[in-house]
């Protein structure tokens, strides 16, 4: 696949490019914006909002909770050892383990969810330019049949460079 991208010095110009591309009929989901820092004040930064990580963290917490309950109760019943006059399944001390495992479940699930949804790790060829590390903002789209219109949009919106890349 061929992609065209423009490099911008300022987020305002990148925003103009995104708006211009949309006017040129490029679907929003085809426009990639890559930057060295998140520009929360700009519309282009607000396209991929999702609450999925929060939901998955909750599920992870519930799984951690259930796993902990299974582990402590199962163990205590498998080897009914009386300790300090406490019942075999002693809920007060078990709550300590259950709490820690619940939080661990939520934390680990959050990190796994981040990696999966953000498509990390990713070491193959992808849309990127090392100039991003120098503060440039990359706006890129698949070339398709509108290559000339895209280049024109990038140039007119103030791109400091327009490049083509084979992915």
């Amino acid at each position, binding site marked *: 696949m061929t992609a065209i991208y423009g490099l911008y010095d300022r987020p305002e110009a990148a925003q103009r490019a995104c708006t211009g591309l949309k006017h040129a009929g490029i679907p929003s989901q085809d426009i990639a914006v890559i930057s060295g820092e998140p520009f929360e004040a700009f519309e282009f930064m607000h396209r991929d909002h999702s609450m999925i990580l929060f939901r998955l963290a909750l599920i992870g917490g519930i799984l951690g909770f259930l796993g902990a309950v299974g582990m402590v109760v199962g163990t205590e019943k498998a080897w009914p*050892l009386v300790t300090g006059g406490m019942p075999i399944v002693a809920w007060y001390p078990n709550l300590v383990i259950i709490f820690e495992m619940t939080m661990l479940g939520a934390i680990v699930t959050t990190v796994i969810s981040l990696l999966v949804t953000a*498509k990390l790790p990713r070491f193959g060829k992808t849309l990127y330019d090392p100039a991003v590390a120098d503060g440039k903002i990359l706006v890129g789209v698949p070339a398709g049949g509108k290559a000339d219109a895209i280049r024109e949009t990038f140039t007119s919106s103030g791109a400091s460079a327009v490049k083509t890349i084979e992915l």
Partner: protein
Amino acid sequence: MSAYSEQLTEDLLRPLLKTSWRFWTLAILLIGVVSLGIGAFAYQVWNGIGVWGLNWPVFWAFDITNFVFWIGISHAGTLISAILRLVNAEWRRPVTRCAEVITVFALIIGAMFPIVHLGRPWLFFWLTPYPSEREIWPNFRSPLVWDFFAISTYLTGSSLFLYLPTIPDFALVRDKTTGLRHRIYAILALGWTGTTKQWHRLESAMQIMAIAIVPVAVSVHTIVSYDFSMAPIPMWHSTIFGPYFVAGAIFSGIAALIIAMAGLRKFLHLEQYLHPVHFENLGKLLLMMSLLWGYFVFGERITTWYGNDVSEMTAFWQTQRLTYAPLFWTMVTVNFIVPVLILSFKKLRTITGCVVASFGVVVGMWLERFLIIVPTLSHKPLAYSWGHYMPRIPEILLLIATFGAMVMFYVLFSKVVPIISIWEMKIGQHPQLAHEHRTADESATMWRTEP
């Protein structure tokens, strides 16, 4: 890139890309100090735990003091960083990573001590819940097993909390380096490019982690306090121990953070990013925690004194008037009187003032952990079980090595990872940039959506 961003990137990557002879000298010195501790540990393993000053009735002393102290220091980072992130305190930006690093290394050092203390450390895995051929799993009613779960959860959470916001900075270093260094940072960056989706997911993950890590941090030191308060032993069996330990942990953690930040500021020349206001804000937090610590100590002491139970009063007077009184009053002076005197006055709440107070607090909090453990164990309810404790050289070397290890880990870390989050610092400049440079026309393009 703005001039500020360029300068920021250059300043914060300088320690990674340039190495002076001073770094190597310091690294060798610190490795030497840590080697002393490793040697002392090897000597103890070879000869048995009898080489320590432990003897009946005092079987917990320096090692468990180190354990509680370093777990306490670990509260500097993740907890403070998470709270500052949750309340969106703008001044947090240069502070968070400096703090999070302390947590991870202090936890590693602290968590080693129950293993060091085992006598047969190679059997430490008996603490973990693995199904053995005899089907005997750890006893979940033991506070020592709670420690295992709490510390491993906190260490896992804190390490991930430190690593996640470092990924964009690893990507930056990847693009600024070549050769082997480039390849290593490319792996650490996990192929991060900085798409809008990646930024959103990262920020969501950091929010969730910040919410989750605060109760975990509180639970960890509460559970460490349960190692003592679950036992019906004078001065230990107290309901106040959980919050008292947590407050003490945050107190010592802030002090460690101030010292670390002052060191980084001076030796890495980060004066432009770690401003006096950061120290002043942390100094105010330290003052608040000093007052809170004083309140807890007073509450604990007056309750014991008023109850006038014979066995409790025996241990109590050991710290007030007898053998351990010099240590106790030193602790009160450096944990309460000195910090309150220095930090209450704006004129004294300078970088130097905060660092002086912090050094006192670090010493005082180590003494506090020691005074919780040893006077009580050496004066249990019946007089036949009274005794004394004197540390021996291997224990003292191990203690010194822990401080050496902390500094060594910190120095090595700041050599390979930007110690201040570069991308978060850049965000901190956004509102100002927007105000200064955005024209009316440019502002109009913001938030414009498809017609």
